[in-house]
């Protein structure tokens, strides 16, 4: 195996951070090579340097033994390097062919381009209609657009940044087939993922980064997922222990809610019912864009519905706004940390006040009780081990994992009756994720109803007692966790079991 891409001594620093320090590794022809590391380990900076989006401070890159110094993505593509982004670099209001043309340096005419898209799509089993608006596509289809865009340039090195985080298990299988086919044709693939089992199944070799340095290289198939994780974080991992689940009285009921989409590419909620009991962790699985955001808004109170549709204990709260719901004990933490759950330019104390105001009585006759408010924020920081210089620090300055711990902890400390969280550990490193999951379980153990919306099936399997699948705006009836295999859930997420479990309105475990 000859080295197609080789990185020697690559170093890149940002003010205050050494993102990459003296990185060495090689990727051979036809090799699928994993880059492993926690958030902030330097994977993104490294691949951005390879794709020409970041200029390294020191070190050289070689493609085929020739010095490779891309001045931008166009130069990188000319040298045969393509990249599929974690957050898709697609334009929703443009169609598939236009999106693909934008990612090519020298696109052919319309008719030829459409034909080539169809040819490549069929050759790799990735069916695509070039004329459809990207905004109307599912997440899996959008990823196909990105991949086809790369394949049309006949790349020699393909970078995949967290490609499976939003796919159903079946879509992951399709993707892996495509990648193996590409590798067999001699393409070198650089694969970034948090999902260790996938890396073990797919990748030939792995380079592990920690704090911007290469700490190990290994053959992932020869290691267990646990060993890989411990190499990544340099610590031993603890898992939350399973606990007995004895559901209490119903706390929150949503009855037959139908809600038309509010935005052009939004999802219509279709006859969604759910019931959450005291001490229950209800997981809602599904691929992003199937109504998670809409359901979250209905539960948090950002979207108001008819009063009788949503009942907390015996109170009809559907028509209430978020503040009133908080007063009665329904708390929520949305997916987007900055800008939705927390105001980036405000301090942690002020952010604590924003949701804690009512329940913690942080204001008196319109004036903020400064000492009490600061104590509340400090209590959250202490209890959830939020790493921050001080409580006065702006939310924006915290790392994703630490801010997420603060945002979730802020709600937990308010002793909610019902807590609704969306993607509680999205983009959070393994350590912080474990802390958050344990905290959610502990909260349920004290009698709170916890509703977790997540795309991470492993997470739901780990923390939820019961779960439902949200697909195309429909919510399936709840199942006991463990009663279905991951494959069956994957099929439900893809919509192929739409008529099967959803019909039965009674609880599977009742």
């Amino acid at each position, binding site marked *: 195996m000859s080295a197609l891409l080789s990185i020697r001594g690559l170093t890149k620093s940002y003010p205050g951070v050494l993102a990459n320090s003296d990185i060495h590794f090689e990727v051979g022809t036809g090799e699928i090579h994993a880059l492993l590391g926690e958030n902030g380990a330097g994977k993104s900076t490294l691949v951005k340097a390879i794709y020409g989006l970041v200029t390294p401070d020191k070190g050289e890159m070689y493609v085929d033994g020739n010095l490779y110094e891309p001045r931008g993505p166009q130069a990188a593509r000319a040298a045969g390097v393509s990249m599929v982004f974690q957050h898709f670099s697609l334009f*929703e209001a443009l169609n598939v062919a236009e999106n693909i043309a934008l990612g090519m340096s020298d696109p052919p005419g319309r008719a030829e381009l459409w034909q080539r898209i169809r040819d490549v799509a069929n050759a790799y089993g990735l069916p695509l209609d070039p004329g459809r608006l990207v905004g109307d596509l599912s997440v899996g289809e959008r990823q196909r657009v990105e991949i086809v865009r790369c394949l049309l340039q006949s790349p020699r090195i393909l970078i995949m940044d967290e490609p499976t985080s939003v796919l159903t298990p079946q879509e992951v299988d399709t993707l892996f087939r495509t990648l193996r086919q590409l590798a067999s044709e001699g393409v070198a693939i650089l694969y970034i993922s948090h999902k260790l089992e996938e890396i073990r199944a797919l990748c030939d070799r792995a380079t592990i980064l920690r704090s911007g340095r290469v700490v190990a290289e290994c053959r992932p198939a020869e290691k267990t997922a646990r060993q890989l994780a411990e190499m990544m974080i340099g610590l031993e991992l603890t898992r939350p222990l399973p606990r007995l689940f004895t559901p209490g009285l119903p706390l929150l009921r949503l009855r037959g809610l139908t809600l038309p989409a509010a935005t052009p590419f939004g999802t219509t909620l279709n006859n969604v019912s759910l019931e959450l009991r005291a001490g229950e962790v209800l997981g809602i699985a599904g691929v992003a864009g199937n109504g998670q955001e809409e359901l979250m808004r209905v539960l948090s109170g950002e979207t108001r519905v008819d009063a009788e549709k949503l009942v907390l204990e015996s109170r009809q709260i559907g028509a209430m706004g978020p503040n009133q719901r908080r007063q009665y004990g329904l708390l929520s933490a949305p997916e987007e940390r900055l800008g939705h759950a927390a105001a980036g330019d405000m301090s942690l104390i002020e952010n604590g006040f924003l949701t804690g105001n009512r329940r913690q009585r942080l204001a008196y006759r319109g004036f903020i009780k400064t000492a009490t408010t600061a104590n509340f924020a400090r209590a959250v920081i202490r209890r959830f081990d939020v790493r921050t210089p001080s409580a006065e620090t702006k939310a924006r300055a915290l790392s994703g994992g630490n801010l997420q711990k603060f945002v979730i902890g802020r709600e937990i400390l308010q002793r909610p009756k019902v807590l609704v969280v969306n993607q509680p550990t999205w983009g959070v490193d393994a350590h912080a994720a474990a802390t958050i999951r344990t905290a959610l379980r502990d909260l349920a153990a004290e009698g709170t109803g916890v509703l977790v919306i997540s795309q991470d099936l492993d997470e739901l399997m780990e923390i939820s007692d019961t779960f439902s699948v949200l697909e195309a705006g429909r919510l399936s009836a709840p199942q006991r966790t463990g009663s279905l295999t991951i494959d069956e859930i994957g099929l439900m997420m893809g919509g192929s079991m739409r008529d099967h479990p959803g019909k039965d309105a009674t609880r599977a475990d009742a």
Partner: protein
Amino acid sequence: MRRPELPLLAVTLTAVLALIVFAIANGLNPVLLTVSIMIAATPLMLAALGELVVEKSGVLNLGVEGMMIIGAIAGFAVAVETGSPMLGVVAAALAGAALALVFGVLTQMLLSNQVATGLALTLFGLGLAALIGQPYAGIKPPAFPRLDFFLSDIPVIGRVLFGHDLMLYLAFALLAAVWLFLSRTRAGLILRAVGESHDAAHALGYNVIGIRLAAIAFGGACAGLGGAALSLVRVPQWTEGMTAGAGWIALAIVVFATWKPGRVALGAYLFGGVTILQLNFQAARITPLWLLALALLLLAVNASVRRWQQGRPVAPVLGWWAATAATAALAVVWAPSIQSQYLSMTPYICTILVLVVMSGNRLRASLAAPASLGRVFHRTG
């Protein structure tokens, strides 16, 4: 033609028909009335097309009024000094583009707020134009060349289609060019992509700031041309503050047109028409009731065509037609007097109403608007 455009076409035809009926009923020459509407619409169309391109690239420049009036005085001054109106036009475009680039550098490179900077640009432009314009008040500019040849002598059609000043044809050439650019060229696709998601465009290696600066300069040049069309052709004279809100109307037209070039032309003619007609209303003793009847008529036509197109029964729309007839009948019998100031307000009231109606349908408006419109692009890495 795409089918959804059919109701729009029917409404436009009805409005044109109403215009002709109005002109004949009041002893006006419908041809002359049409020509004056075309002249009034040209500055709006030029400025709105420029702003359309700017907004398609994701930048909201509220300084159209300022760039128009700078174009108006620059074009006027150069035309008077050199005696050549064509040099004046070139100067107007350059002056508009120069002022726009001030906005561009401030918002794109120094990351200042687009709304505040745009407003400041308008205030600055109005003041600077007044200063430059001091010596030019009351002077007549050199006559603007016209496309005048034998075809202009054809009755009606000749007068409407030929014999206009060159600015009017320039506006239509620009319309065709902008449409072609946005919908058929790769450069236009890249521009739309930048307006749709600047982060994605940047990740693909496009120079977001450079593309936006070019769009801003083009928009400024178009606004400058619009200003020259006012001071050299429509009025033609220099008076302080002569744009009188035309830049704001151009901004409204872009929203009205849901960011489509063809509809920008339609909007410009609609607003140009209202501007001219309100002058004639005063003489013709048109009462607000007649205007209400016209609005109801247009709504009735729209609803009927739409239902017919979708194959639904037309019967429920009869209410609209009845209301139209009743209002018209009432207007004949009862003629409440109205002060002329209210009629002068008509173009601006129409602007506000159009904006309210368009933003009322949030789903459609948000689909058409460039997704990154007005958002600051901060380059990292």
